[in-house]
């Protein structure tokens, strides 16, 4: 009984904490395995370089495209599309979702419709969007919007609905009017969950980027990937994928920081 737990016991105990240094080491090891495996497969010619570029080639391409500014230009275009689509979607989905989760009278008409639409594949709407709004940046923004909005609406409505009834009841006994409850109680109570929803759907918005740039785009990371495919430039495709992943990671971290700032009280 008196014997202290060994490091191994700690590592293999469900939910047990591990030292921060161990966690960092494990995370680094994972990247080394992934990149090492890639290096092995590509440098060792296990997979022909035509299909799998070496890490060195990808770095060279990244360096070259950074120097001439094209990487920055395409990244900026893509980020603009994703952020605009995401912001327009969120600005509508947050208040509407709050209403939907709060008032049955809003939920009843919207929910069946939204649940129908959100299972439709975004790609099937691309031809329609092109007919309706042309091939400008608006069309790409529409794809991102369409991919995220209906998911956001349902998730944010759930955030609002799971606010404790007694919290709202308590606010009434303290003088909150019915019309004030959404703003004074339900919104702040649901805020951490809403921010988590936004963080998750932001990730989804990035995944729709290539779909959005599939047709009729003339710049952007998805666009250069498609162009590179035609020219068998796998190194460019790898670079574009890595750039999208990196941007996703940055926005994700930004959302984590925002949540810690805006809702420091939430676990």
């Amino acid at each position, binding site marked *: 009984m008196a014997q202290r737990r060994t490091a191994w016991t700690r590592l293999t105990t469900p939910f047990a904490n591990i030292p921060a240094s161990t966690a960092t080491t494990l995370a680094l090891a994972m990247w080394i395995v992934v990149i090492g495996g890639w290096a092995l497969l590509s440098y060792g010619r296990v997979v022909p370089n035509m299909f799998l570029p070496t890490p060195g080639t990808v770095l060279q391409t990244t360096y070259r495209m950074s120097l001439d500014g094209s990487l920055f230009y395409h990244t900026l275009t893509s980020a603009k599309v994703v952020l605009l689509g995401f912001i327009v979607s969120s600005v509508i989905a947050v208040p509407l979702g709050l209403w939907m989760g709060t008032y049955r009278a809003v939920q009843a008409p919207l929910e069946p419709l939204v649940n129908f639409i959100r299972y439709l594949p975004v790609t099937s709407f691309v031809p329609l969007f092109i007919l309706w709004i042309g091939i400008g940046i608006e069309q790409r923004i529409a794809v991102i919007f369409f991919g995220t909005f209906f998911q956001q609406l349902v998730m944010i409505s759930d955030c609002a609905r799971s606010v*404790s009834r*007694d*919290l709202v*009841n*308590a*606010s*009434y*006994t*303290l*003088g*909150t009017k*019915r019309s*004030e409850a959404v703003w004074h*109680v339900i919104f*702040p*109570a649901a*805020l951490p969950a809403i921010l988590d929803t936004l963080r998750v759907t932001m990730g989804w918005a990035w995944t729709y980027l290539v779909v959005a740039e599939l047709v009729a785009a003339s710049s952007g990371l998805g666009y250069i990937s498609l162009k590179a495919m035609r020219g068998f430039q796998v190194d460019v495709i790898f670079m574009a994928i890595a750039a999208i992943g990196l941007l996703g990671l940055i926005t994700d971290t930004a959302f984590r920081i925002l949540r810690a700032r805006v*809702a*420091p*009280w*939430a*676990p």
Partner: protein
Amino acid sequence: MGTLIMNATSQTAAGSRAAMTETTKANNPAGVANAVGDPRSAGTTMAIEDVTLRYGDANGALALDDVSLKVAKNEFCVIVGPSGCGKSSLLYLAAGLNDVTSGSIKVDGREVIEPGPDRGMVFQSYTLFPWLTVRANIEYGPKRKGLPAEQRRQIVDQYLNEVGLAPFADHYPAQLSGGMKQRVAIARALANDPAVLLMDEPFGALDSQTRGTMQKLLLRVWERQQKTVLFVTHDIDEALVLGDRVLVMTARPGKIKAEIKVDIPRPRSMDVILEPDFIALKRRILGLLHDEIDEDH
């Protein structure tokens, strides 16, 4: 031996006062003064008349069957009953959080039709606003009322001290223990200066030591603040330690089965549970509740 008043529609104020003074003297040879006097001399604050509650529609299960009771100004009135008897439902009705099926509830003569700050409530579950600090939680009601900042600060400071949480004013609820959360909840409800304070098993989720501490604190606050309290619990000790009067409810559908006047002198210490008067009252209530549980099976 304590005075038991069965199935009583309230005695006249004068008679009750006399009876209480008598028993206080008799039971209290040490001569400790009754700190609050007889609460019933001051008139009725809350009147519940012939209240019936059915769950769902008019054909739903009967939860409360023709319940009538009065709570006098500054009285500490406790309702005990078996679980599921509808005692919490009665409190939600009094708060205006649910609608009665028939009957009426009046507070200071005004009919209850919706919730309002004149009926503060402390819930069994923790209902502090997690996004507000302790101070801001207590300030919430006065802020809704539109009181000026300086006055709000005074009220908050007063109640922070009253519940002994001044050092935790800037903490968030997540950083507090269960007992501390309920202390803030009491302070928050009192900061609104409600006509009646409704308490729905507020200490039910706490461990027994903390519960004792909280009862002591609530008694101290109540004796100083002179509030009208309607308190619901299933804990007989708690009912007798706190109450001026204990109403025993039947199992579903809930009805008031008996009214027991607790003439144990105040201020009460927690040791009161060992005294013969207390035990006699407890035995009486246990008997009433056991009948209920037996009838149920």
